[in-house]
């Protein structure tokens, strides 16, 4: 049994994305959740499944309490960082297809303004980073930028990927962020701005790195028959899959440092969906770093391994290009909410509600997640 097309995203919600929010992660999560539930056209009490993303917001029990949910039938916690939202689509669709529940809330909030929550301080308390914490952190390999940089460096050395290729990704995301009113970054950038931005962890410059921002985002995934009666045109989850790289807990020890978990997941998701790469009209690709987009394009089979750099040249990822990508600005230029904003944006595109960033006639699109040290997931969705 496949869950293909048995579940739909029916509701989307986002807070304002900003820096310096005075709200807690859970407050931001509740705000976006209520918006998503209202967008679906159901009441909070109708939610019968919840997947809170991350561990800094509310628990499943907190949602029962705050929404007065009478009968929560399904909950899950997915411990894979930024891959968790896309993995949650797989979990929600599986549970719905099996008849376990009808309306699953997937929700995330974060406030990284607090000093204890900065990038360099965060990951060392997470169990999945214990190798890094014990063997790498004390020597100065602290933040994700430093952990991922050797992957990017090796890719550059082996395949000739360049700074300009990274810049193409950064510029495309920024151009798209300027088209919506809810992006943290508000000024255009050029390839030259990218190249001249301050070096953080060579080869990553400041404009290769995703934002630190506060906000919440949520979606409701509903059973397809119930979804037919709700407010919006249905957006079907046609295929979804998760995958993990070898040595998921340590990039240092990974046999092939230039391969991610999504390489294993992509063939499964495409096969389930019945779509091929040429059917994908819009892509929302997890962009913790510019390089991660290039790498995932290769791992998903949009181009050969090593060809991701040339693939993104010439504006291919920009609106009007062959594969418009991160039409909301992504983590690089809209906000970092672990990629739930990527799912929200794909749903907007497939409903035809993406405003100035709308890809004309978008019917089929793809969203990915990338978590921790290379866990991956993707979902292929179609509009009605």
């Amino acid at each position, binding site marked *: 049994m496949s869950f293909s097309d048995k579940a739909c995203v029916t509701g989307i919600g986002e807070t304002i994305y900003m820096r310096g929010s005075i709200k807690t992660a859970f407050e931001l999560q509740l705000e976006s959740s209520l918006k998503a539930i209202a967008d679906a056209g159901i009441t909070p009490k109708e939610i019968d499944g919840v997947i809170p993303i991350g561990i800094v917001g509310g628990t499943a029990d907190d949602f029962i309490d705050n929404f007065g949910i009478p009968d929560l039938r399904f909950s899950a916690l997915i411990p894979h960082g930024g891959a968790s939202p896309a993995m949650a689509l797989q979990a929600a669709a599986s549970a719905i297809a099996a008849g376990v529940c009808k309306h699953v809330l997937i929700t995330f909030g974060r406030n990284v303004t607090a000093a204890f929550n900065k990038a360099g301080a965060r990951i060392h308390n997470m169990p999945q980073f214990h190798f890094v914490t014990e063997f790498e*952190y*004390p020597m*100065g390999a602290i933040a994700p930028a430093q952990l991922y940089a050797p992957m990017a460096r090796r890719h550059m050395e082996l395949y000739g990927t360049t700074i300009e290729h990274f810049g193409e990704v950064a510029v495309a995301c920024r151009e798209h962020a300027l088209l919506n009113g809810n992006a943290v970054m508000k000024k255009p950038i050029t390839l030259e701005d990218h190249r001249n931005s301050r070096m953080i962890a060579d080869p990553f410059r400041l404009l290769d790195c995703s934002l630190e921002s506060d906000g919440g985002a949520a979606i409701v995934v509903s059973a397809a028959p119930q979804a037919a009666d709700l407010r919006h045109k249905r957006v079907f989850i046609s295929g979804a899959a998760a995958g993990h790289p070898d040595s998921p807990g340590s990039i*240092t*020890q990974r046999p092939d440092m230039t391969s991610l978990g999504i390489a294993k997941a992509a063939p499964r998701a495409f096969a389930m969906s019945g779509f091929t790469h040429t059917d994908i009209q819009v892509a929302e690709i997890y962009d913790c770093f510019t390089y991660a987009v290039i790498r995932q394009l290769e791992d998903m089979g949009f181009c050969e391994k090593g060809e991701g750099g040339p693939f993104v040249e010439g504006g291919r990822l920009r609106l009007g290009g062959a594969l418009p990508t991160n039409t909301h600005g992504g983590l690089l230029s809209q906000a970092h909410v672990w990629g739930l904003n990527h799912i929200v944006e794909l749903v907007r595109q497939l409903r035809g509600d993406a405003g100035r960033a709308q890809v004309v006639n978008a019917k089929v699109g793809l969203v990915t997640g990338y978590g921790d040290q290379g866990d991956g997931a993707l979902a292929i969705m179609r509009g009605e």
Partner: protein
Amino acid sequence: MDKILKPKVEHSEMSRPFWEAAAKGRLTLQCCGECGKKRHYPQLLCSHCYSDNVEWKEASGHGDIHSWTVAHHAFHPGFAADLPYTLVTIDLDEGVRALGLWRSDVAPRIGLPVHGQFETRDDGIDLVFRPFSK
């Protein structure tokens, strides 16, 4: 003002032998007590035969560069005075990898032969690598 210390982490019981050897300047690796497969970083089971029987064996410290990064931003105040510093990922001759600090003016490149050793500081111990002519 007191010197800002680098992060200190508690070592797990499982990896305690690694750090005890490191304090004596020896780089050691877990070796499966049943099938002999080497592994790093330390973990409970051999992923080949599932045995939890472990022997610690000394590594040569020899290897070559797999990749690297140069830190230009201090994500922890204890590293601000060290900027820029280079971290190298090393393919050890024993078939596992190690991360270490680069102690050379030679630009790193993939495949460059290196030799590593431990360097102690007030607040910890670092694995450092230098070019090595075979």
